[in-house]
């Protein structure tokens, strides 16, 4: 046989929502097609005609893993459209909320999905069986993030307190203080995690990334300018958030309903590695020390090193969460106004914030009553999709001697580095065996 077709379902037993097809003919890679269903496209249409106040609740339903990111990009874009600024208390609490999402999302991926690849294990379930205490550490870390979301957002999965102008309710000091003991444990656990993953043996792969992330005076979450570096160290292009669509162009992949986003017609990387490389100067001291102790030098240029970047960001988020909560205690006069009044107007607003998987762009056109006329959402996975394909094009020729099964597994490992945001808008049991 001269032609090989390798097919990989990106989510086990869930066909059609994420798949990879590789075609090899006469020892040569002929095609690599990554197909990812993107829920945001539906939501763009669904948002039309909706009042601005409904938007944070609707976009949170796009994703059960990163609802805060969708809410943050939405509120910042709409506040920009209305010419609003939020209070400093709200700005800090939004960072704290984002810390919670980074901690839960990154911990889940590091422990349940990515670490098993470097340990010769098939899944997080095997890690549970072989190293139960290590997995328990990861799950407890995840829970620390969940608790931040619950205290600030009202619930862990789909926060309900985020609104345009602030929060519907601000937490009491003692509510936040109740998180501190566990956060102090988490800081040590995050250091242990970083040392653990930095010791993994990793394959060599250096695709020569163009990195893109927000960058500014603080490690980016809700703020910073879009910054691009083609060698991982030099910031060779910056533009304001308003300029996103001027630089990053979406195109329809002919074999998929998903859009691919390109920079100057070329793939680029968003996410933890891009953020870390472009924001080394704003890393917290504890993260710099932990990276140095683990022997990690920046920039990271190998996709498998994403697990190191995620682990570093868990430590970054835990350490910042502690400071934010201690500062909140330090206010002493109570939390102040939960949100500022909104005056809608006919306008257009955009925002980029840093979702766990990378830059998340929202643009809203609103009418004079504050109803959505048009929405555009560019999630990080559509930005990384062309990059994932490019990595596979580069890697596959070197492993063509592998069996189909082993080759598919190797492709999966590359894709897993990105933790692609495959739609989780629906989550039902798919069963082949039926119990009466």
């Amino acid at each position, binding site marked *: 046989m001269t032609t090989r077709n390798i097919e*990989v379902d*990106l*989510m*086990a*037993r*869930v066909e059609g929502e*994420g798949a990879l097809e590789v075609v090899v003919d006469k020892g040569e890679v002929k095609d690599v097609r990554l197909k990812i269903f993107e*829920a945001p496209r*539906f*939501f763009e249409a*669904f948002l039309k005609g909706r009042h601005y106040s409904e938007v944070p609740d*609707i976009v949170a*339903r796009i*994703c*059960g*893993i990163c609802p805060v990111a969708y809410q943050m990009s939405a509120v910042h874009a709409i506040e920009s459209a209305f010419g609003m600024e939020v209070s400093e208390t709200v700005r800090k609490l939004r960072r704290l909320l984002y810390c919670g999402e980074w901690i839960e*999302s990154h911990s*889940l*991926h590091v422990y*349940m*999905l990515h670490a098993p690849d470097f340990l010769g294990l*098939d*899944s*997080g*379930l095997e890690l*549970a*069986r072989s190293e*139960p205490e290590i*997995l*328990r550490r990861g*799950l407890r870390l*995840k*829970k620390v993030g*969940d608790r931040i979301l619950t205290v600030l957002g009202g*619930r*862990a*999965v*789909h926060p309900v307190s985020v609104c345009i102008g602030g929060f519907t309710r601000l937490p009491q000091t003692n509510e936040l203080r109740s998180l501190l003991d566990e956060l102090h444990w988490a800081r040590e656990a995050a250091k242990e995690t970083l040392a653990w993953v930095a010791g993994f043996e990793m394959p060599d792969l250096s695709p020569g990334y163009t990195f893109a992330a927000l960058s500014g005076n603080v490690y980016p979450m809700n703020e910073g300018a879009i910054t691009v570096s083609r060698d991982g160290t030099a910031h060779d292009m910056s533009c304001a958030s308003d300029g996103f669509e001027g630089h990053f162009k979406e195109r329809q992949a002919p074999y998929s309903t998903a859009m691919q986003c390109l920079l100057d017609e070329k793939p680029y990387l968003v996410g933890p590695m891009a953020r870390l490389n472009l924001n080394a100067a704003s890393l917290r001291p504890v993260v710099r020390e932990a990276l140095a102790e683990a022997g990690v030098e920046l920039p990271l240029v190998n996709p498998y090193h994403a697990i190191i970047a995620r682990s570093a960001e868990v430590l970054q988020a835990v350490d910042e969460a502690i400071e934010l909560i201690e500062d909140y205690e330090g206010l002493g006069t109570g939390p102040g106004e939960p949100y500022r009044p909104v005056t809608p107007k006919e306008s257009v607003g955009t925002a980029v914030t840093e979702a766990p998987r990378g830059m998340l762009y929202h643009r809203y056109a609103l009418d004079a009553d504050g109803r959505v006329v048009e929405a555009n959402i560019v999630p990080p996975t559509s930005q990384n999709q062309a990059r994932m394909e490019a990595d596979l094009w580069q890697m596959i020729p070197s492993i063509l001697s592998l069996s189909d099964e082993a080759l598919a597994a190797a492709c*999966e490992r590359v*894709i*897993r580095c990105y*933790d*692609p*945001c*495959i*739609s*989780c*808008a*629906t*989550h*039902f*049991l*798919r*069963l*082949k*065996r*039926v*119990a009466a």
Partner: protein
Amino acid sequence: MGRVRVIGLGNMLAGDDAVGLIAARQLRDLLPADVEVQAREVPDWDDLQGLSGDDVVIFIDAVDSGAMPGTIFEFNLGDVIGAGLRHCSSHGLGLEHWASVAEALGEHVSHLMILGMEIASAELGDGVSEPVTAALPELLQRVEQAVAKARDEGLNGKGSHA
């Protein structure tokens, strides 16, 4: 007697996938006050860890098995734990995944139960279908019965005071 928790799963904007959420919201008025009822989008590790041997967790979820829409299924732990737990994305971790991990870590999940309803469509933007709407009262009744049994004697015939 241990705690009894009912968790409805689904997405209100995704057709019949909303059935778990709708059921949970109605059950808040139907179940005893000491039964914790939650409605949310996805299952989580926290649902299954830290349980005592007497605690009972009942999930209500949509099911896609090829049966007639509106068909009600009852599963226990062994029914949902299976092979095929490899994922490229953390977005794919569902109930079967967390149940498998909880069991492997020795958590007390033997009193886990799932009441599921076969769905016609989970397309984003669709409403709840006629067969699912028609079968909802029976689903609520089945949950009430399961809760009563759990409070009385525990699931699987294992009395909480045994």
